[in-house]
């Protein structure tokens, strides 16, 4: 009964989404406040019913109800509880249910935080949001129903794909979806503004926190996925330029551009049309990402299912929403009033520069990802576009942007003084050059570009810190610097941390790519291997039985200068139900950020094949992402970014109530 109640609740959510699609928009057209007011409560209702559906499916997974096809196909009674729960979204149907759940969550949040939006904008935004929701409810119910039942329930399930049985994968999809789906709010605001035919600084202020929140989640989601691939796949790589990764990188790049252009729009009332277009493009790229992953046009670990009906359905959603929104954009963009002007050298100019390069880089990734599909569809020729393509296009396009990042925040609005900025950044510049020379001297004979990369990373990190130092007048008035730091707007802290994180990320990328060492060899118990400054000895090898797998575990003793510093136990697991082997890597962190990485291969002639990496500074890659996200989160708490001013809104409502 619980399962069927969940199923029915999902249908009810669809019905409410249909109401929300029609009634509030009709209200805005005829100017009826009662019809517009329907939007909020119905958005709440949607969220309630989708939550019931999600809870019901989770319950079915937890109690191993194999009469539900989704549970039978992706669960197993002996699976640990955490993976029974994460298994809910570790498969196609469940992950799409998660997608609509998050969409309805965002809808409910707009309904709550947006109460003091102008009424017609409020109704239009939630109406557009409901269009998206309706399309995806239909997709779930018609092509990917997680509540489909089996008439003869089997006694045991087929288990979840073992490489998905991992804590990292338990939280990666929810984070990623919070990002993807979060951009739907910016999209709904953009389309609503076009329908309303009115857009101004206030619009940018309302859109920014949603974009920021989505961006923070997407950043965390991508970082999480990258770290998961790093430790779970056993290849030691952290980014493969795999189409599925690109699918999440594209909305991230566009979202980052949107974040910056929304600042210009809010502060200076300029770049309106462009910001609207970016909001539409960002969510379109999120939809494209969903299409690429869910339709099975790409085959990779993320393509749980390959079902053409689903692909065609999502393609339809993609065409309708992207095509529809761009058509409205083309028709209405001209009516939007043009905003303020600015000199090319100015904060606005710097942000335009940022947008240009981010979108160009995004376009390069777009072409690299879709060109093989296009070529195959048109000529039947099969090619693969791999890392070299992206390194050659994405790299050069990011370089000028990275060089400019520290300069931007120093420029004044409207008209900036490059010379004054140069004076302020002179020290940072000298330090970056010094870093290049020192690195070059210490690593002679190593990769040529690496010292330059280190210099660029220094330029970014120190530049971000210098901007903070000047803002709080750390050097000119050290006495009051702390007070100033506390009083600094949270969004300034966000800028600093965001750019600082980027520098750390770059530092990790440069160090890892340039100075990692790799050893592939067959080792027998007692064998010793020298890696970097460590001595690894294979102590023994033994068989271990886990809850739903059997494993062979090798024990390595790591010594530094003859002293034992770590014991590492890489393993090879074989999951019983699917008879599928997985590699469990063993990782030890040294010096704070560097890692020793062991992955086990096939047993061979009494020994075992081992892959051993030394990865200097590799953790900075993900720490950089965390710092960036932290910057976004702090910026989100900026008082000015909270939509409207709650106190004033409450007072208004109190006055309004008796009037009715």
């Amino acid at each position: 009964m619980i399962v069927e109640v969940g199923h029915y609740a999902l249908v009810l959510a669809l019905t409410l989404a249909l109401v929300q699609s029609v009634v509030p928009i009709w209200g805005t057209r005829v100017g009826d406040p009662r019809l517009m007011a329907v939007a909020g409560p119905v958005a709440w209702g949607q969220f309630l019913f989708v939550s019931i559906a999600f809870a019901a499916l989770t319950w079915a997974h937890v109690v191993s109800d194999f009469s539900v096809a989704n549970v039978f196909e992706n669960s197993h009674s002996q699976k640990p509880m955490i993976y029974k729960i994460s298994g809910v979204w570790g498969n196609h149907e469940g992950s799409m249910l998660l997608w609509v759940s998050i969409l309805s969550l965002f809808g409910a949040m707009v309904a709550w935080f947006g109460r003091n939006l102008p009424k017609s904008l409020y109704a239009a935004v939630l109406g557009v949001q409901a269009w998206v929701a309706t399309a995806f409810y239909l997709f779930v119910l018609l092509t990917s129903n997680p509540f489909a039942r089996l008439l003869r329930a089997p006694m045991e399930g087929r288990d979840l794909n073992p490489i998905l049985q991992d804590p990292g994968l338990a939280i990666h999809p929810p984070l990623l979806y919070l990002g993807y789906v979060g951009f739907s709010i910016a999209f709904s605001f953009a389309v609503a503004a076009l329908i309303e035919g009115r857009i101004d600084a206030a619009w940018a202020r309302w859109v920014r926190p949603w974009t920021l929140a989505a961006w923070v989640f997407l950043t965390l989601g991508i970082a999480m996925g990258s770290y998961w691939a790093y430790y779970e796949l056993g290849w030691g790589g952290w980014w493969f330029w795999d189409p599925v990764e690109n699918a999440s990188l594209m909305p991230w790049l566009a979202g980052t551009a949107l974040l910056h252009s929304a600042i210009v729009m809010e502060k200076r009332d300029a770049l309106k049309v462009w910001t609207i277009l970016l909001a539409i493009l960002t969510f379109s790229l999120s939809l494209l990402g969903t299409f690429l992953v869910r339709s099975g046009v790409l085959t990779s670990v993320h393509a749980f299912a390959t079902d053409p009906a689903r692909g065609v359905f999502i393609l339809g959603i993609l065409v309708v929403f992207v095509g529809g929104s761009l058509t409205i954009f083309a028709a209405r963009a001209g009516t939007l009033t043009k905003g303020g002007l600015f000199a090319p050298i100015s904060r606005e100019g710097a942000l335009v520069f940022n947008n240009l390069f981010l979108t160009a880089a995004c376009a390069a990734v777009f072409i690299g990802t879709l060109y093989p599909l296009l070529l195959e569809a048109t000529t039947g020729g099969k090619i693969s576009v791999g890392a070299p393509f992206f390194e050659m296009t994405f790299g050069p396009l990011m370089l000028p942007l990275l060089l400019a990042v520290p300069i931007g925040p120093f420029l004044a609005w409207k008209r900036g003084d490059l010379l004054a900025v140069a004076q302020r950044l002179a020290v940072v510049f000298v330090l970056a050059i010094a870093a290049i020379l020192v690195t070059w001297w210490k690593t002679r004979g190593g990769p040529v570009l690496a010292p330059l990369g280190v210099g660029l990373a220094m330029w970014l990190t120190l530049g971000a810190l210098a901007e903070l130092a000047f803002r709080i007048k750390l050097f000119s008035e050290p006495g009051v610097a702390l007070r100033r730091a506390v009083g600094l707007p949270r969004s300034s802290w966000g800028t600093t941390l965001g750019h600082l994180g980027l520098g750390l990320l770059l530092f990790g990328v440069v160090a890892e790519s340039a100075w990692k060492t790799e050893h592939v060899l067959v080792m027998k118990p007692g064998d010793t291997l020298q890696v970097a400054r460590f001595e690894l000895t294979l102590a023994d090898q033994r068989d271990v039985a886990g809850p739903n797998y059997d494993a062979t575990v090798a024990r390595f003793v790591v010594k530094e200068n003859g002293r034992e510093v770590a014991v590492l136990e890489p393993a090879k697991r074989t999951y019983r139900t699917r008879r599928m082997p997985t590699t469990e890597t063993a990782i030890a962190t040294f010096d704070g950020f560097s890692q020793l990485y062991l992955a086990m291969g096939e047993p061979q002639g009494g020994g075992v094949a081992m892959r051993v990496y030394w990865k200097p500074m590799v953790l900075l890659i993900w720490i950089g992402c965390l710092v960036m996200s932290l910057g976004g989160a702090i910026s989100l708490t900026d008082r000015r970014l909270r939509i409207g001013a709650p106190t004033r809104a409450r007072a208004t409502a109190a006055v309004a109530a008796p009037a009715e």
Partner: protein
Amino acid sequence: MTRKQKRLTIIGLAGAVLAAAIGLVLFALNDEITFFTSPTDLATGHVKPGSRLRLGGLVEAGSVARENSTVRFRVTDGVNAVPVTYTGILPDLFREGQGTVAEGKFGPDGVFAADTVLAKHDEKYMPKEVVDALKKSGHWEETEGKGYPKGN
């Protein structure tokens, strides 16, 4: 600067970035893409040795031989088979009789030297290129919308 000049500067910059991006992409598309081939393509001499390729097919049963960390095996599409060498650790699901994609160079000696070997990620998944290669050589059956290689 006048209003017009300001606008022109920005449009000019945008144009320059766009041109640079297009140039880079075209250059990279010319140079950095990898073509996909089947064992039959290689065996019938359609491919000039030395270029970077992806080779897809099934790992021929009984063909895998290991020697320290170097592995030799043959990739077949049911019609022809090509010997492949690879140094390193094979993916977890690399097995005889299963689909695989090897990326590397086809040498003049007729041996494909792979630097990357990919295998399917789970029992449902078969690299798309492998499926296409098998379909082309007729060794593929469609049943109820889901395909299975005949020579699994």
